[in-house]
């Protein structure tokens, strides 16, 4: 079983805008960018990212943050190594859906 995520962006960056983001030409680094991920149906681990086959999962962790305000964040992160040797970090947005790559 597999699925491709092609839904529209949930703009996690917009949620993250804080006091510094409001300043003139300031912009944030490490913004999530949408990724095309083929995920395993059982445990949800990525099997292919942007066409690159995942060789091994190095680590997985859950981030739950900002639950005290109106824009909570709930993400399942995966750090993986692809067959071409790339070390990638992707997350699945558990609230709005969608997969994103992030460094």
């Amino acid at each position, binding site marked *: 079983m597999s699925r491709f995520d092609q839904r529209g962006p949930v703009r*996690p*960056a917009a949620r*993250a805008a*804080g006091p*510094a*983001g409001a*300043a*003139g*030409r*300031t*912009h*944030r*680094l*490490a*913004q*999530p960018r949408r990724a095309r991920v083929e995920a395993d149906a059982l445990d949800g681990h990525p099997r292919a990212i942007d066409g690159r086959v995942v060789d091994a999962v190095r680590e997985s962790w859950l*981030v739950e*943050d*900002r639950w005290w305000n109106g824009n909570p*964040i709930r993400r399942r992160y995966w750090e993986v190594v692809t067959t071409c040797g790339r070390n990638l970090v992707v997350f699945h947005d558990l609230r709005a859906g969608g997969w994103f790559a*992030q*460094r």
Partner: protein
Amino acid sequence: MIVCVLLPRFELTVAAGDREELLRTATALAPEPGREQRVGEVSPAAEAFGIHAGTPLGEALARCPSLTLVPPDPAGVADRWERLLVRLESVGAAVEPERPGLACFAARGLLRLHGGSLERVLSVAHRALRQPARLGAGPSRFCALAAASRARVRRPEIVPGGKAEAAAYLAPQPIGLLRGRHETAALAEPLERLGIATLGELAALPRAAVADRFGAPGLFAHELARGCDGKLAPRQPPERLAEELELPEALSGVQLDRALQLLVDRLLARRERRGRTLRTVVLSAALVEGGTWRDRVPFREALADARRMRLALAQRLQLLPAPAERLSLAVERFGPPASDQRSLLDEAEAVRRSRLREAVRQARAAAGPDAALRVLAVEAQSRVPERRVVLTPFE
């Protein structure tokens, strides 16, 4: 009312020198050594083959195999153009040079000085130039350029009125006139290919459509075609301070460095410098193979130190395409008598910060306000990666 002075094919004429017969055949200015391989100004016979200034060299030779290439003479052009500008300034004109062969000035301040009529001002300017030139006058710079393009040497063309009259005058003019302004020169060809043959047709296009297709240069061209233009920015008449060295044998390498050293020392010793620093200089050379070479060198900071000047100029001298038989160094702009004051105590951190600040200033001047940013940790311990650091203006 703006007056435009146009000397068509000025650079080609200067480079051809007394070989006037060249201008009657298919001739073009060869590309400058080390620059992009595109021809410069072309003769009317070469234009008949569809060659324009800026045509790639290979394409120009393919269109006209018998095309004669004249080595460019940038130093000669700059000298001759400067003399003409000084002649115009000598009748009271505050001149804005657009490029060699094209200059504009406002006639308003000269009317009372020269008899009260525009025709009289044009006549005085024509006499001051002491060489054939086309003169046109109009409500805007671009309109004056269009008028000068249609004028004859002995019959200036005047477009009276304001913006509406300028737009009406420009409407039937060919779109190729946009080549006369460096901001819009690249637009002439694509517009011609799209079937827009006149400025009137360009002015009739929806502004939004022009903006979408051609961006800022397109919007500017649209404004020009509608009779609008920016204000004149007359130059400050420069002080002439130059040193020249005839080289008995064509020199290159270490000997040329020695010649440069001598030139720098001579220039700094000139009394007319009055202790001021130098901000920008022009290094030029007459090449043994014919033609000249010219390079404008703005210093990172105003200098009066011969050693630092030599360091900056020696690098440029290595770009010389051939051995030189004459080398000259001229001041284009002076700096203040004293440069930035150093701190009394040699504080390494203060010096480093000052240099960094200057580097940031120069980077921003060259590439915009976002050229120098720094990474600032705002929530270094955040579990959400995009909240940890931001890019922010350097200072």
